[in-house]
């Protein structure tokens, strides 16, 4: 008599276990990610200074944000940095991948050399490049010692050029990874089509331009999305390489948010800048993730 009830209970428990297992992750996501986004969003409409306050001031912080010259510099820097970083990484990554794909001797040696910077912390990368780019001791100094007296490379000390040194260090770190993405794409292309095209007398240049590179579209898209979101989030590298300087010349939204929130005690403005960063990333990531998840398995 009791048996069916008991097994019924057991199956019902079995039905609940998966949801119970998932619950802690879902709860932490709802609190620590989405709850926190709502909280920071709310703070951006308050007059919070050193501590959070709940007095609403409307769009005041956003209005103030766009009046601040430092924020303008940070946004302009991000535009320069992100476009160069993405374009150069893709150009280098694609070229290296195509060259490595020509049945190269020692490919197994070269690939890890191109890729290892990705395993390093941006703080390590920044430490190394800060020194290499320092005109007094780094590359410039070495070339002077080697006899090239007129060589001059002082970008890191110049407020108009320093942002480009951030590009150099960031490209050094990430371009090998982009190479790996394109190489995987190249290796996935059907060789039969290429052989047929060669048979028809297509030149190497046309083969790549017309057949191979168009087939790498998914790799281009992934590389773009990953690099774009890394660019918006860039923080460590600037801190280690230039500290935002000289002056405020290499300030980025991420460093701006941190200093306004935690050292200048303008938490409302800091929160507003964080919201704008989130919106920028969402504009890139949500369509991409939507397309990725929508595709049938």
């Amino acid at each position, binding site marked *: 008599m009791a048996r069916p009830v008991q097994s019924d209970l057991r199956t019902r428990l*079995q039905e609940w*276990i*998966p949801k119970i*297992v*998932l619950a802690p*992750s*879902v709860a*932490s*996501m709802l609190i*620590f*990610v*989405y709850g*926190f*986004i709502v*909280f*920071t969003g709310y703070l951006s409409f308050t007059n919070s200074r050193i501590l959070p306050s709940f007095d609403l001031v409307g769009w005041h912080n956003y209005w103030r944000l766009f009046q601040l010259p430092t924020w303008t510099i940070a946004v302009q820097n991000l535009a320069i940095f992100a476009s160069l970083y993405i374009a150069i990484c893709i150009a280098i990554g694609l070229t290296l991948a195509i060259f490595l*794909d*020509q049945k*190269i001797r020692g490919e197994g040696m*070269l690939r890890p*050399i191109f890729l*290892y910077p990705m395993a*390093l*912390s*941006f*703080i*390590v990368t920044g*430490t*190394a*490049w800060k*020194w290499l780019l320092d005109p007094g*001791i*780094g590359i410039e100094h*070495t070339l002077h010692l080697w006899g090239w007296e007129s060589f001059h490379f002082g970008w890191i000390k110049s407020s108009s050029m320093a942002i480009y040194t951030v590009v150099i260090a960031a490209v*050094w770190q990430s371009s090998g990874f982009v190479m790996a*993405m394109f190489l995987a794409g*190249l*290796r996935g292309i059907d060789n039969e089509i*290429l*052989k047929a095209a*060669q048979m028809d007398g297509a030149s*190497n240049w046309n*083969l790549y331009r017309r057949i*191979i590179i168009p087939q790498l579209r998914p790799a281009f898209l*992934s590389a773009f*999305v*990953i690099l774009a*979101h890394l660019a918006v989030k860039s923080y*460590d590298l600037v*801190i280690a390489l230039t500290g935002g300087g000289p002056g405020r010349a290499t300030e980025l*939204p991420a460093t701006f948010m*941190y200093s306004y929130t935690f050292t200048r005690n303008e938490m409302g403005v800091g929160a507003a*800048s*964080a919201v704008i*960063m*989130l919106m920028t*990333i969402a504009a890139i990531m*949500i369509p991409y*993730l939507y397309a990725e*998840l929508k595709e049938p398995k």
Partner: protein
Amino acid sequence: MSGAVDTGVAIRTNRVTRTFIYLFLLLFALFYLLPLAVMLINSVKPLSEITGGNMMALPNVWTFEPWREAWSSAQIGVQPTGLRPYFINSILIVVPAVAISTIMGALNGYVLTKWRFRGDTILFGMLLFSCFIPFQIVLIPMARVLGMIGLAGSVPGLILVHVVYGLGFTTLYFRNYYSAFPTELVRAAQIDGAGFFRIFYRILLPLSGPIIVVTIIWQFTNIWNDFLFGSSFAGQASQPMTVALNNLVQSSTGVKAYNVHFAGAILAALPTLIVYIVSGRFFVRGLMAGSVKG
């Protein structure tokens, strides 16, 4: 004509083109190796040879003093402790954070592929988006919450932060891996009376080796290299290696001991570099899986 295994594209190239390709590849290999080589060479030189000499030259006098100093006696903040305590902090943070987020990610992936329910794709989408948010958006409330639950400035606090913001990626890895796994096997085991956990332990887990390695490497690299959370939420006693290294390098007091900075930077890079050298194949797979579905 060509061998049985035909990997690369069979492009016909002449001698001049091939020479150019090799030169180009070697040039870039130099570009990638240069910073590491310079750091290594200069970390075993006395300071006088660095400030007065050529950064590319091998040391006249070899010394491991900078390494010893970086490890155990350099001034970090106010204490002359070297990087050792912070290296230990990083290990104390990384090991539990990686273990917990990997286990939770594996179970999440299992539920999201083999025990599907209404709305699971939306939940997964939300989890996935959380991987990519700029963490600036959570810094202010997180600092408050860590203070409220008494974990501000502590190692457990940092473990919590890394677990919470690592779950998206670990779930992504396991979900993609398990979605290729035949659901019929799970259903058959269910009919035979196996429960939720038994199916996981006996059927899925034994086949999860590669994805576990990928996930651990990914989480290890990310958490070890984290700077933003470490600098926002750690106290003086719980600072991770990256924050301590930055303090060492940026400290403005006294003469800049470049050789000590380089030894310290290599010490900070060593764990992830070793992981990369030992398991580069999985490292690449992890990077790829983080960017492309499947």
